Every structure is written in C-alpha cells, then in structure tokens.
C-alpha cells in the first residue's frame, strides 16, 4: 500500500516533467533553420506548392497552437508522420526502438558481468594487481570513445581475422527477418524456430554488444568498488569481521549492501545509453531509434525527434519505477 502511494506520487511528479521535455524539444526543433515543406518537395517546387503544403501541415499557424495540436494528437496515440520515411512515426519507432533496446540491454548486461566481479575483487584485495588493473580500467574505459572502439573491433574481427560478419545491420542481408513479435530478433527468431536467423542475429550482435559492454563496465566497476570500500569500512561490516565470519560471508553481505547504488547507476546508464548508443548504431548500420532521431534533427524532420524524446523519456520513467521497486526488495529499511 505504502509502495503504491509512493509510485503514484512519483507518477504525479513525472507528468509535468514529461510535458516540459516535449515542450522544450518542440520549440528547440522549430528553431532549427530549414523548412520541411521545401525539403519535402525538393528544389524544383513552385512557391505556390510550397505554400499549399505549409498550409496543409499547419506550419502557418502560431507555434503555441501547433504545440497544442501536437500534444492533442500525442494523447490520442498519434506521433505524426516522418517526411523522410513517409510513414507514421509510431510504426517507425515500434520497429527501431526494440533494436536499440536489445543492443543496450545486452551491452549493459555484459558491462555488469565485467564490472561487478572486477569491482568486488578489487575492493576485497586492497593492495594487489587486481586493484591496479581495476583502477586503470575504470579510467581508460571512460576515456575511450565508443565509436572508435567499435571501429577497432571491426578492423580486428572483420577486416583482419574475418571472424565477425560485416557490420551492416542486425541480420545477414540474405536472410529474411522473422515475424516481429517482441521486436528482439533473438527472441523472435527463436519463436519462429528459425535457427539460422537466430545465429545470424546473435553474431551481428557480438561486436556492438562488446563495444557497449567494455565502455560501460568502467563506471559500473568504479561504483561497485567505491561503494564496497565504504561498506567494508562501516561499523556493521567491521563487527562482522571481528566476529570471525568467513571472508566469503563478509563479501556476500558487503555486495548486498552495495547493490542499491550500483542499481541506481545502471538505471542512469540505461537511459543515457538509449540515446548515447547512436554512434555505435551508426558504425554498425544498426538502424536503431537513436540513429532515426539524429537523422531527423539533421533533416528538419520534427516528428521522429519528438517521438524519440517521448519514447526515451517514457522508458527512463519505467526504469526508474523498476529501480524503486528493487529498492523496496533490497533495502529492508525502506519497507519500514
């Protein structure tokens, strides 16, 4: 009950925030020089045709009215049309967002698999090679641009060794994508029983996931290590140590006490990476949501950008809610 009211309050707080985000991005994109009507009709269009299209698109109305119309449509589930793909933005995003989501989820999963064990090991062993490795890895991972790492991986595994498939999208071009159910190619191909498509999708995922995993493991490692350090120095852990509990038990207790801050970091990383993975998406020709939004900005195509901003804001919202629920599960003090 207490939890429900907490979640309710949280939602109440988030709706104005969401409106603010859409408001700012709407006016920001409207400020971008470039007339969509001119871009849509091409350089040979007559002035009359451009004027007619501007009228049809509602571009001649005052900005505030345009914004009100847009919000009204969004509330009915209509995100408008992209003039580049000439398709409804909602359809486009339904196709592209899962691609980004699959990539980011697996990438952060790998980052956790690298970051947490290394951070725990470095924290349990104050002086030693593991600690040094962890220190330098944390700094290096924060310094390497992900798009460059992606290129290096492509060079080594595709150009040089020829193990990895060509970085040209989510599936080998000769294969037909399985029916979209969840949007994740891995899951959909398994559902369709198409082993060949599954294998291809998995092999296309390896390098981009490796890129995101290696880069994002840095902050996770640092956070795990510093929280573990603080936990191990706290009174209750010293008491556990003095009571003669075995190292294994102490480590488990310290990990559990450090989990909330790691989870917070992962939730932040997740919402940042949804937009931030765009560079990796471009390198691998992924056709994800971030790429779609960037193309929109560069071509004065407002609806895809707004759609992307709304989608990622909703996703962050969902993630933060899940994190709050996890806190309830992990920290007995909040349950009260």
């Amino acid at each position, binding site marked *: 009950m207490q939890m429900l009211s907490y979640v309710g309050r949280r939602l109440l707080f988030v709706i*104005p*925030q969401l409106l*603010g*985000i859409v408001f*700012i*991005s709407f006016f*920001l*994109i409207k*400020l*971008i*020089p470039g007339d969509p009507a001119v871009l849509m009709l091409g350089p040979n269009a007559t002035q009359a045709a451009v004027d007619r299209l501007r009228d049809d698109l509602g571009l001649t109305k005052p900005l505030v009215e345009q914004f009100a119309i847009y919000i009204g449509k969004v509330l009915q589930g209509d995100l408008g049309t992209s003039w580049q793909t000439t398709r409804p933005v909602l359809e486009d995003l339904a196709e592209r967002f899962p691609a980004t989501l699959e990539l980011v989820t697996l990438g952060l999963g790998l980052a956790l698999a690298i970051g947490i064990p290394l951070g725990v090991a470095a924290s349990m062993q104050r002086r030693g090679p593991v600690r040094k490795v962890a*220190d*330098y890895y944390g*700094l*290096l991972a*924060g*310094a*390497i*641009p992900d*798009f*460059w*790492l992606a*290129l*290096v991986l*492509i*060079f080594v595994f*595709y*150009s*040089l060794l020829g193990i990895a498939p*060509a*970085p040209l999208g989510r599936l080998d071009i000769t294969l037909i994508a399985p029916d979209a159910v969840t949007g994740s190619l891995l899951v959909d191909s398994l559902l369709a029983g198409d082993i060949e498509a599954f294998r291809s999708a998995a092999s296309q995922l390896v390098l981009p996931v490796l890129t995101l995993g290696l880069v994002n493991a840095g902050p996770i490692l640092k956070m795990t290590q510093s929280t573990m350090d603080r936990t191990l120095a706290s009174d209750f852990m010293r008491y556990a140590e003095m009571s003669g509990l075995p190292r294994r038990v102490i480590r488990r207790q310290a990990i559990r006490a450090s989990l909330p801050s790691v989870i917070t970091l992962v939730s932040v990383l997740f*919402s*940042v990476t*949804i*937009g*931030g993975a*765009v*560079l990796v998406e*471009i*390198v691998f020709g992924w056709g994800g949501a*971030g790429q779609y*939004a*960037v193309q929109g*900005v*560069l071509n004065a195509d407002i609806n895809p*950008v707004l759609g*992307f*901003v709304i989608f*990622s*804001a909703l996703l*962050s919202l969902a993630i933060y809610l899940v994190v709050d629920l996890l806190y309830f599960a992990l920290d007995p003090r909040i349950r009260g």
Partner: protein
Amino acid sequence: MSVEAAGVPSPGGRPLPGQEWRGAASLRFFVAVLRNRPAFALGYGIVAAVVVLTILAPLISPYDPIRADPEAYLLPPSLAHPFGTDNTGMDILTRVIYAPRIDLVIAIAGTLVSALIGAPLGAAVGYYEGRGPIGRSLSVAVMRIADVLQAFPVFVFAICLVAVFGQSISSIVAAIAFVNVPIYLRLMRSQVLSIRNMRYVEAAYIAGASDAAILARHVIPNALAPALAQLSINIGWSVLLTAGLSFVGAGVVAPTPEWGSMIASGFQSVMTGQWWPSVFPGIALGLTVFGFGLIGASVEALADPVQRRALVARSRGG
C-alpha cells in the same frame, strides 16, 4: 648584518618569509605526492605534452594540416608519413598534432562557461533555499528546469542545439556548456546546503555581513572543491562529446583537423583494412581524455581531507 637579522626573531619580519616557505613546501608536497602516486604524474605529463605539442604544432609538424596530396592517398605508416595518410592524401600525424587546437579549445571553453554559469547559480539556489518563500519557490523552479534538461538524451539534445545555432565552433561550445550546466548546479547546491548551516556562516550572518559577502567569502570558497575536481573530468567528457558530434557530421567540418571527424573520415577505410586513418586520432583522443581523468582524480584526492591525510602520511614516510 643579515646573519644577525636572521638570528634575531622579529615579530614583524616573520609573515613574509613564512609565506615564501609555505609556497616552497606546497610545491615539495606536490612533488612528493606525484612520486607517491605516479599515475597522477602521468596525467599531468600527458596533458602538458598535448598542450605543448599543440602550441608548437606549426614548428614540429612535418606537413600542412589541410593540404591534400592526391598522389599520396591512404599510404600506410612509413618514415615519410609516420601515421600514414588519409583518403584525401593528408598527413595524419600532422592533423593529429593540430587537432587539439580545435578539440581542447572547444572542450575547455564549453566546460568553463558551464561552470561559470552553473556554480554561482547552484550556490545561490542552495543558499536561498531556506530563506523565505520567494527564495524557496525560485530554487525549486531552477531545480525542476535542471531536471527537465537532464532528462534529455544528451547527444540528441546537443545535436539539436548545434542545428539551431548553426554549425560553428561557438555553437558547439554553447551546446557543451548547455548540457553541462546542471552538473555544476547540482554539485554546488548540495555542497552549499550543508555549508549553509555551519557555525561560521551563522557567525558571519550575526556579524551583519550581507548575503553577497557571506556567499563570496565564506560559502563558495568552501564549497568549490568537488566542482574543481569535476572540471578536469568534464573537459575530458567534452572532448569526447565534441568528437562524437563531429563523427555524425554535426560538429567540426572537414578539412579542419579534429579527432572525431578524422575518425569518421577513416570509417570506410577500416572496413577494407586501412586502419591508420581512424586508429591514430582515436588513440590521441583517448590518451588526452585519460590524462584529464587522472588530473581530476588527483584533484579529488587532494580535496578530500581523508584521502589527503593518507597521502601526506605516505608521502612523508616514503
């Protein structure tokens, strides 16, 4: 005469030599810390090297950074071209040396602007939050705006800003400043919130100091350390962001030498096996950001009383 003067302790003469001595001691302390933590020295070394190379670029670089030699395109690294040439025939080593002129200037300018806006604003917000209803509602408004700005996907937001202001160096600086302001705002606010209730602030208030004087003389100096540590780390991020913007074509335009656009221009060549146009600028970029990260870590360690004491103890002992 001088021996006598040195021997006789004169109360008036003490402060001056004392100050000199303190300067020398802090320098010696700094050196001792660097010897104790060689990684910090590495950080300062890398950044110093980048800065020196950049300033001396016209003297030491073997070629013209924006002159293409169509005869010599995509040459592998050799004695004549230590880092090879790119697909238009420009010397990569020369361009790598010239690039920080753009990258560092953008990153440092953007970071400084964001800190100069964000830190005082954050201090004011933190200070006035408990001072009456007007102060509180203004503070809440500022923090909500910061929430909204931070909820944006950073990269898409930055590209939007560059698109709005037009593609130029000053608009990249503006975009970087804009996305970083909330960081300083938050850091300063949380520091000031805890400092505001200190006894010495109360004492100054009772003594009749004005709000501006309390903020400038007592609050801000004591709240600045985390923001300073953030500065160096943030310069590194900003270099990454600049390179990323150029990589998608929303930043610095070719043929201006810039690491991100160099990596982008070598993108196709990497697929066919010519790694050098992309790899070298990336290494230079990564090393620079790494250096700034190490400096940030050293500032953080020196600003944290607990870590500083440990460092002092070890530096004295070793």
